Structure formats: C-alpha cells, structure tokens
C-alpha cells in the first residue's frame, strides 16, 4: 500500500465522490453506494476495488452483507508526508524572512 496507489485512487473524481459518500455515512453496501449515482454497479465495484487496493476503503462482512468503510489512515499519512513537511518549510522560511527584515 504505497503513496502511488493512494494518489492514483484519489486522481479519479468518481472515486473521490465515493469517498465523500462514505464520509457522509460509513459502512455501506455496494447497492447503497450505487443508489442515486449515474454509474453502473459494475463501475462502482471497479472503483471500490481500486480504493480498497489503496487501503482507502476497507470492506467487512456483516452477516450476509459486505459493508464498505472509509479508512482515513492513508490520507493522514499522505498529509504527514506530503503536506505537513512542505507547509512547515514554507512557514519557517517566512519566519526567517520576517526575522531578517526586522533584524536588518
């Protein structure tokens, strides 16, 4: 489960939409996720598989139903690795600039 798989999964608007739907209400079946969507059930299934491979969605059996859950951990990891790092560099550069300007 690498960053590549997560970025690839997030690069598609339909898949981002599916994540948003799970964010609204977690633990849904394929049928529930297909409701109100213009996508076919097969299409949703394919997208869910990509999301599962990236670790963004986890499916669990509950009785006869297969429920899909949003797993936010990979997004947090992307955040830690790719957002926090650059933001703190940027912030410290600004702080240094301020120091230079005020000091000079």
């Amino acid at each position, binding site marked *: *489960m690498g960053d590549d798989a997560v970025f690839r999964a997030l690069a598609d608007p339909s898949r981002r939409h599916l994540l948003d739907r799970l964010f609204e*209400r*977690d*633990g849904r079946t394929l049928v529930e996720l297909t409701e109100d969507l213009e996508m076919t059930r097969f299409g949703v299934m394919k997208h869910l598989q990509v999301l599962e491979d990236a*670790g963004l969605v*986890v499916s*669990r059996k509950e009785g006869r139903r297969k*429920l899909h*859950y*949003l*797993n*936010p*951990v990979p997004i*947090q*990891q992307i955040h*830690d690795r790719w957002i926090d790092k650059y933001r703190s560099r940027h912030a410290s550069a600004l702080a240094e600039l301020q120091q230079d300007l005020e000091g000079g």
Partner: protein
Amino acid sequence: MEIATLAKETLSTPTQVYQVFIRSTPEHIWEAITDPEFTTKYFHGSRVELKLVAGSEYLSTSPDRSEVWVEGEVLEVDPPKRLVHTWLARYDAETAAEEPSRVTWEIEDRGDGMCLLTVVHDQLEGAPKTAQSVSGQGWMYVLSGLKTLLETGDPLPAFSQ
C-alpha cells in the same frame, strides 16, 4: 418518507474501521497494544493495563494513574492476532454517561515483515459522543503513532518527553 430516511441515517452511529500496514512482527504489535510502557508512547499518553483473560478488566489511565480515562472488559484474547474489549470513555462527563462500545484489534501477518493492523470500533449506537470523540484524529493519531513507534523506535513528537 424522506424525513424518515434522514432520521434513520442521523440516528444510526456506524461502525468505525481503521487500517494500517506496519513493518513489524505480530508479536511486537501485540506487545505495543497490551503493554502500558508502550501505550504511553502512542495512545494519547495513556497507560493501558489489562490481563490477557476474557472477563478481566481493561483499564486506561493517565500516565501517573491518577485518572481513569477509559474502562472496559476484555471479551476475547488470541495473542498475537486478536483482542476484543469494551470501551467506556471516562475522560469526559458526557461520554462517561453513555453505553459501553466495543473495540476489536486484528493483527494479520502479510509476510515480508509487514503486518496489517485493523481496529474496529463498533456497538456505538448507545455512545454517539464517544463515536464523535474517537473519530477523525482520535484513532488515526493512535495508529499513526503506533506505526511510527514500531518502525522507527521513536514516538511521534507530541508524546516524546
């Protein structure tokens, strides 16, 4: 019709599932979950004490043991693969008044030194405040911290003393 559906959706507090790959052994992960010296380093600073016997107490306290943060009962123990316990959050008056929920830890050896750790927090129907409190950063920070601790030997910055 629509209102009924909406009410149902709002009332049901769904299960929360978190999953993370950790480069470690099932034994190390198990130790990190069940040993208070480990949990203080990644579990919001809490000391988790439990006996590996179903029916015994699960207790999470502040590092100096002066406050009980979470209490529960151990329901299932299968080292180093599966631990199930109930969860009653005492750290907040509102969550303390709720029904106990349930936490399941599953450790799956995926080979090549990788394990998949899954945390399922369910039976949250009688604990909406608890559900809110552990979602988002709650469990995610615990799992990120556990991963970092086991893979690098160092806790995440917030918990390094």
